[in-house]
């Protein structure tokens, strides 16, 4: 026989309490002078022996009752079954899968809630003082309760209630290695897994080998999931961080079918600032992912956000993503015209002037100003001065043969202040001078290597490769409606070196050489083209995509003035706030979560606000910048990888292997778990017999006492 709570056996000497009380009462007896001793002695003469035995029996009954009571708490059990019985000496360990896939299921009845409910009922059956641990398993194992004694059921339930899921995935094989290493030296362990049956999470766990002499009884609380369909929006991108008000802006969402059945004619809804804007239909096969493209229009300037949303399914959490965007009414673009280019079609600006509406807006400088949609162009010739750059967002260097080093230095200052520079190297550019002038000024992302020239309108020309599908900026320009960049023909171009790592190449020539290099600085941006924008040595100005392409180039250059509005979840949110006047503080808000404070650091022409850490969850955030007279709200879309969206369950064989390897007993709900626990303890514990004996002894005592009444 062994005891489940052997600690209680220390109380066994207390069973002598009735004997002690007996003698104490005797010792403290009341002294009475008695006149009826004759009667008393007549009674004693008849009953003395009987009274003596009554006392002995009563004392024995009381002592045995105390012994039985202590034994009841000590919970005796048969030796062979002690290892399987829950109780003291057994260390009960709960491992909770806190990955977000546990949120799958109906709202309020998700696996997460159902699993925690089962755990609370389980801990309520455990006795006070028994040893337990609670680990939250996400990217790593976090021990929230580490071998503590149970205080009471409410306290345990509170610890379980306090568990929060995480936007992370679990790798059980890795997690269990650390769990087994920690628990291997424990003599008796009971493991309770509260986890889903994701094949991705349990991968390779069946190959785990338990440490020697470590054979825990393990239960797997795995609430079932009925809904098999599971779409996830894995990424949402706008063409750029800056869009133009009143103009259609392409938006892209990547969606993946993590479910086990085909999805046909599913709808992707686009919402602008939370209001429905558009929708697109799509179909996906299980496991397939794809981009869904839409188009939205922002009606006014300012900070906005776009949300891509698919319909409810097994896991609602991953059905939407948001992206932030800064919308501007217009862009002021300064074109540095090379005065040496006088021939027809030497420059694209002549063509633009025709396409746009020329207006004499600046009589003083006699500089031509013309608008092309939201772009307001000013053409500048001659030495570059401060006044020419005032209130300009983008400067286009068309050729730059006539640029002086002073002008290059001024342009560098312009970029450092957040301006955008668009460099267009046409056939008239002297590569060496260009590299020297702009390279020395630190404005050249990629030096020009060699000039390539073919016969204009001849058979030989260079073309563009299809835009990188992973980069949204120019992906829209590959359709019949908007024009296809693949139709561009270049008779003159430069070979560019591969740029530094912080520069991107959204467009390449068909032979793989860079065509467009984009370098975002903080602040400022430089966009470099390996060819000119003029129509003499290429056909760009006469293709449908030219104006959207030009708009895109300008917005990409102008975006350098703004911090990215769509960021990755892994890094802290960083936001540049121009204008130092009256800024009191910035906080980062997200619906249903505590605001994150952002620290402010002075920066040229403003402040940089940064969150203390990376956001815990993906989603839409709003940075509230409180100023003296106003509050500015900047929408930021935080997007993390959908690492745990794949709910595909373990296959039958893999599941069987896992169950066997870990000795798991599966329980989809409390009833089944309770049944399993009862079955494992049935007949092993003698608890009931001890309690029965205790009751019998108490009844015996009562009957004895009753005789005296």
């Amino acid at each position, binding site marked *: 026989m062994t005891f489940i709570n052997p600690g209680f056996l220390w109380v066994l000497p207390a069973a002598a309490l009735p004997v002690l009380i007996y003698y104490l*009462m*005797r010792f*403290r*007896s*009341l*002294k*009475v*002078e*008695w*006149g*009826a*001793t*004759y*009667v*008393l*002695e*007549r*009674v*004693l003469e*008849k*009953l003395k022996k009987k*009274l003596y035995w*009554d*006392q002995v029996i009563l004392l024995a009954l009381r002592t045995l009752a105390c012994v039985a009571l202590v034994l009841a708490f000590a919970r005796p059990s048969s030796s062979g079954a002690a290892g399987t019985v829950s109780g003291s000496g057994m260390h009960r360990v709960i491992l909770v899968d806190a990955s977000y896939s546990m949120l799958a299921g109906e709202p309020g009845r998700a696996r997460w809630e159902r699993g925690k409910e089962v755990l609370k009922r389980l801990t309520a059956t455990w006795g006070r003082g028994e040893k337990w641990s609670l680990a939250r398993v996400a990217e790593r194992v976090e021990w929230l309760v580490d071998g503590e004694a149970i205080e009471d059921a409410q306290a345990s339930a509170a610890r379980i209630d306090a568990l929060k899921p995480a936007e992370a995935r679990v790798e059980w094989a890795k997690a269990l290695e650390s769990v087994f290493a920690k628990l291997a030296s424990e003599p008796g362990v009971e493991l309770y897994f509260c986890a889903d049956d994701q094949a991705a999470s349990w991968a390779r766990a069946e190959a785990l080998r338990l440490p020697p002499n470590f054979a825990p009884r393990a239960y797997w609380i795995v609430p079932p999931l009925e809904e098999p369909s599971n779409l996830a929006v894995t990424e949402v991108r706008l063409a750029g961080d800056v869009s133009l008000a009143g103009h259609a802006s392409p938006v892209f969402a990547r969606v993946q079918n993590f479910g086990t059945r085909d999805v046909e004619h599913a709808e992707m809804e686009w919402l602008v600032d939370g209001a429905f804007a558009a929708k697109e239909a799509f179909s996906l096969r299980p496991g397939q992912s794809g981009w869904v493209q839409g188009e939205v229009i922002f009606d006014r300037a300012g900070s906005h956000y776009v949300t891509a949303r698919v319909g409810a399914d097994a896991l609602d959490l991953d059905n939407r993503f948001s992206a932030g965007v800064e919308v501007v009414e217009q862009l002021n673009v300064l074109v540095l015209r090379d005065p040496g280019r006088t021939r027809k079609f030497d420059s694209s600006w002549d063509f633009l002037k025709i396409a746009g509406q020329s207006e004499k807006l600046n009589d003083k400088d006699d500089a031509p100003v013309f608008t092309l949609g939201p772009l307001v162009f000013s053409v500048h010739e001659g030495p570059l001065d401060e006044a020419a750059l005032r209130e300009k967002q983008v400067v286009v260097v068309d050729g730059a043969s006539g640029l002086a080093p002073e002008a290059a230095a001024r342009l560098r200052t312009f970029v450092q202040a957040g301006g955008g520079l668009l460099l267009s190297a046409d056939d008239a550019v002297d590569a060496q001078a260009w590299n020297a002038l702009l390279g020395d000024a630190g404005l050249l992302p990629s030096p020009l290597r060699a000039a390539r020239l073919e016969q204009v309108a001849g058979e030989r020309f260079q073309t563009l490769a299809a835009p990188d599908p992973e980069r949204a900026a120019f992906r829209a320009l590959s359709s019949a409606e908007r024009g296809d960049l693949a139709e561009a023909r270049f008779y003159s171009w430069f070979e560019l070196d591969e740029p530094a790592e912080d520069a991107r190449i959204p467009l390449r020539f068909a032979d793989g050489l860079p065509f467009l290099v984009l370098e975002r600085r903080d602040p400022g941006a430089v966009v470099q083209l390996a060819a000119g924008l003029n129509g003499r040595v290429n056909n760009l100005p006469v293709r449908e995509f030219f104006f959207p392409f030009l708009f895109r180039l300008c917005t990409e250059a102008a975006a350098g003035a703004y911090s990215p509005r769509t960021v990755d979840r892994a890094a802290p949110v960083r936001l540049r706030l121009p204008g130092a006047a009256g800024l009191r503080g910035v906080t980062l808000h997200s619906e249903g979560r505590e605001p994150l404070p952002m620290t402010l650091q002075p920066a040229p022409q403003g402040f940089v606000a940064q969150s203390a850490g990376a956001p815990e969850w993906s989603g839409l955030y709003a940075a509230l910048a409180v100023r003296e007279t106003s509050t500015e709200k900047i929408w930021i879309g935080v997007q993390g990888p959908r690492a745990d969206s794949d709910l595909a369950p373990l296959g039958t064989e893999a599941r069987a292997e896992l169950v066997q390897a870990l000795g798991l007993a599966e329980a989809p709900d409390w009833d089944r778990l309770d049944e399993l626990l009862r079955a494992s303890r049935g007949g092993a514990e003698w608890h009931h017999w001890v309690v029965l004996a205790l009751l019998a002894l108490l009844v015996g005592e009562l009957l004895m*006492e009753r*005789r*005296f*009444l």
Partner: protein
Amino acid sequence: MAQAPLPAYGLDDILSARAKDALRSLELNARRAVEGALHGVHRSRRKGISTEFDHHKQYQPGDPLKHLDWKVSARHDRYFVKRYLEDTALTLHIVVDRSASMRRASGGATKFLQAARIAAGLVYLALRQGDSAGLALSDAGETVWVTPGSTQAHLVRVLQALAAREAGALDQLPVTLQQILDRARRKGLVALVSDLMFDPAPVQRALASLQAQGHEVLLFQLRDPAEEDFPFNRWVQFQDLEDPARRHRLDTIPLKRLYREEYAALQREWREWARKYNVHLVSSRTDEPVETVLTSYIRRRVEPRGS
């Protein structure tokens, strides 16, 4: 000269004015014929001068001729004389148990004080109707006697004897009763006032002898409330009042019911004995007023049997 010990009680404690008022209108009549030296209100066994005819007796020389019943003599052709009962005064012998067990008090008065009050009440009644009353205080070694008397001064002597000392001796009742038997040649009323907490047999034998000698025997039993109810629920060390060396340390809870049964059995034993010997047994608790006890008993005594 040795100073006399102070009395244990005042005389008013023993016979209060209230008791006197209650007893003033009562008469203690003898239930049996008694013999007395004085002319009184009670029938006597002796034949003498009275108007109450008793029986006829054959004439013998020396009998007064005036008592010849001529009618009966003529009928039987022999001489018969009439005999008459003589009215005589009652002699009351009161025996009070002064053993140490009488010192027990739980209802206010000790058993001995209550016994003294009953004895005083009886003496008061007897003297008021011209009877004589004596007192025997059963004490250790020797019995304190107050010879029968019928004057008011005698009442004071009785009261002084009762008040002289608290109970505190060994039980000597059989001896005292035997002494009564030896001393009281004339038939009278012997009243024993005691708690009867002793072996009944010797006392019952002595009382039976007195009854056989023609005395009317009257038993006053005093019950202490605690001794009767046994109101204990814990361990108690009982120390005998008569012999302090006799001690019993007992758990009273299992004992209670058995004790009460035994106490009742002793009461029953006395009642059955009294019924058998036609002896009045007046049992009262020490917390009952004496006048109530005596009044109710004397009223019951004059009622016809069976009423």
